[in-house]
């Protein structure tokens, strides 16, 4: 008798759990982003206000970029991601391959200053299948306690193992690294993509990377570079600028960003083709790319809003003490030697260059 009672209770418990698990599934959107401080800024500026406004739920998960997961879902006809934060080059190549739904930008809301969306978004922010939210910069940073005398100030210093000893952190991807190698090798910012389009240019970039290959620690997630600096595994590392800003300002870590050679990229929202919540996804995108939410996210991380009308609203960090303007990638003081990532180049050449890059790492 006791045994059966126990079994009934167990069944009841499982049933209740199942119901609460199922109940959480009503009217929800699955939003995928890059994790860490960046996802946090989006949660505060876009997701929470949208959830409060519409009463829907957002399930938030993280990934490390690239189109592989989206491709796998679309190919196996089992799309569970509704909105994905992708870089512009992936948005373009994914759109060409039918991986994303088309988005009609004219349906987006006007800017708070009355400007139409086509005028309000900066050039390059709107593509067929994706709407930009922010611009960030790929920079490199260092731990200032590790270098007693001279400090690194230019891209070439990243490759100088003698003057600045210690390991280097690099993202495990061809993008950004090849351009950085060329700039460190002396190519002018304006010529980088011209050189990279030739076979000799690519070989030159790999040759430069080979000089530090033994000292590289590869990272994949945006949240790893500050961890690597804090644990001492590396003395210098590339990173998304906002990820180094947050520990430096909120936890007083001695991380310094070098803006020389920064590479600017737009992050965008895109909807995988076949998503079961397309209309909800469009509503979320329209909301989160409004003037105020884009300006709000700059309260949490120094990324530039894609709308011109948001720029004047950008003020201080969430501690209400630090000014965000000096930390923005678009600040003129940081633009001394900067390039804007050539999205068409990468949309065309990413697959083959990355394949060569991955083989090169493996040896």
């Amino acid at each position, binding site marked *: 008798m006791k045994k059966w009672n126990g079994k009934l209770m*167990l069944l009841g*418990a*499982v049933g209740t*759990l*199942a119901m*609460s*698990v199922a109940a*959480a*599934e009503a009217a*929800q959107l*699955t939003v*995928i982003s*890059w*994790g*860490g401080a960046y*996802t946090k800024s989006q949660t505060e500026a876009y997701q*929470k206000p949208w*959830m*409060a406004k519409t009463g829907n*739920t957002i*399930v*938030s*998960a*993280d*990934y*490390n970029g690239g189109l592989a997961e989206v491709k796998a879902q679309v190919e*196996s006809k*089992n799309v*569970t*991601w509704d909105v994905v934060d992708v870089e512009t080059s992936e948005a373009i190549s994914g759109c060409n391959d039918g991986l994303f739904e088309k988005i009609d930008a004219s349906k987006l809301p006007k800017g708070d200053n009355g400007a139409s969306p086509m005028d309000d978004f900066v050039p390059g922010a709107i593509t067929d299948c994706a709407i930009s939210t922010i611009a960030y910069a790929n920079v490199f940073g260092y731990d200032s306690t590790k270098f007693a005398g001279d400090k690194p100030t230019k891209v070439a210093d990243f490759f100088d193992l003698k003057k600045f000893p210690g390991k280097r952190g690099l993202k495990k991807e061809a993008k950004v690294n090849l351009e950085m190698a060329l700039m460190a090798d002396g190519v002018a910012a304006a010529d980088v993509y011209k050189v990279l389009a030739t076979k000799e240019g690519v070989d030159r970039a790999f040759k430069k990377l080979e000089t530090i290959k033994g000292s590289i620690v590869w990272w*994949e*997630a*945006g*949240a*790893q570079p*500050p*961890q690597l600096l*804090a*644990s*001492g595994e590396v003395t210098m590392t590339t990173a998304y600028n906002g990820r180094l800003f947050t*520990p430096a300002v909120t*936890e007083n*870590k001695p991380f310094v960003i070098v803006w020389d050679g920064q590479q600017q990229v737009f992050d965008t929202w895109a909807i995988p083709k076949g998503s079961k919540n397309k209309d909800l996804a469009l509503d979320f995108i329209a909301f989160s790319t409004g003037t105020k939410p884009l300006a709000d996210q700059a309260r949490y991380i120094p990324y530039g809003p894609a709308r011109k009308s948001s720029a004047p609203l950008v003020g201080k960090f969430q501690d209400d003490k630090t000014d965000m303007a000096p930390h923005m990638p678009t600040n003129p003081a940081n633009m001394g030697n900067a390039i804007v990532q050539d999205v068409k180049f990468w949309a065309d050449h990413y697959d083959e260059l990355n394949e060569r890059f991955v083989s090169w790492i493996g040896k």
Partner: protein
Amino acid sequence: MKFLKLDFPPYATGLEIAWFFAFRAICIAIFVFLVAPILVIIPLSFNKESFFSFTSGMLALKPEAYSLKWYRDIFANGMLAPDAPLSLDWFKDSWMRSQWMIALKNSIFVGVSATAVATTLGTLASVGLSRPEMPYRGLITGILISPMIVPIVITAAGMFFFFSQIGLSQTYIGLVLAHALLGTPFVVITVTATLTSFDRSLMRAAANLGANPLTAFFKVQMPLILPGIISGGLFAFITSFDEVVVVLFLAEPDQRTIPRQMWSGLREQVSPTILAVATILILISLVLLMSLELTRRRMERLKMDAHS
């Protein structure tokens, strides 16, 4: 052999005494190797900074270098209003929205369901396998235990391709079936081991007394092999609770289990919250193991009292 008995017999040579201490030193070193990583996690989970390193403040044992914020994050991460005052509504918000709470619910649901399936199928199979007349016993036992031996990446990859084609990918059913598969070898091993010491004549006696096979199983065999079933079920549950690779391939973001959430915490979020979760899990395991041991000791004492 007592661990720390120090009264040496008079004929013990110097070498023997030296080895006595050396052996114990080696054993202590190996135990430290086994346990140190587990112990290191616990203080790190109280780190005020969001890194996996001990800060100088922590090493100097300054109280302001420690914080409970990661424990709070377990409840708060994903909540709609984490800064609201602590109330029933706060807990409700956390229970429904917090990523770790959702992961906990998923882990328990998948774990219990998978264990139920694994225990039922595994026990049934073990009863059949332990019968002396079972044909091809070696081969079939080998097949049934193979999920435990085959590398998990292969199992996960195969299931991903196959389940995608039959529409079971990214579903709870697919996940439960996958975990049940990984748990059955443990049930089969423990229950067959218990059945080797089972007296077959008891079943014949039950049949003699008029019981049909089903009654004989439930009333005679099962109570006696229950320890094996429970132990196998426990292994199956732990396997499901700790499993991450299959979940990585087969689950959608809504179905994340605790290990999947930890994996995400290690790769994409790199947040010490997983250390707080880990500490809680370690304490639970410790409590479980200790209580098992204490129960065992009590039963032994009862047995001895009964006999004396």
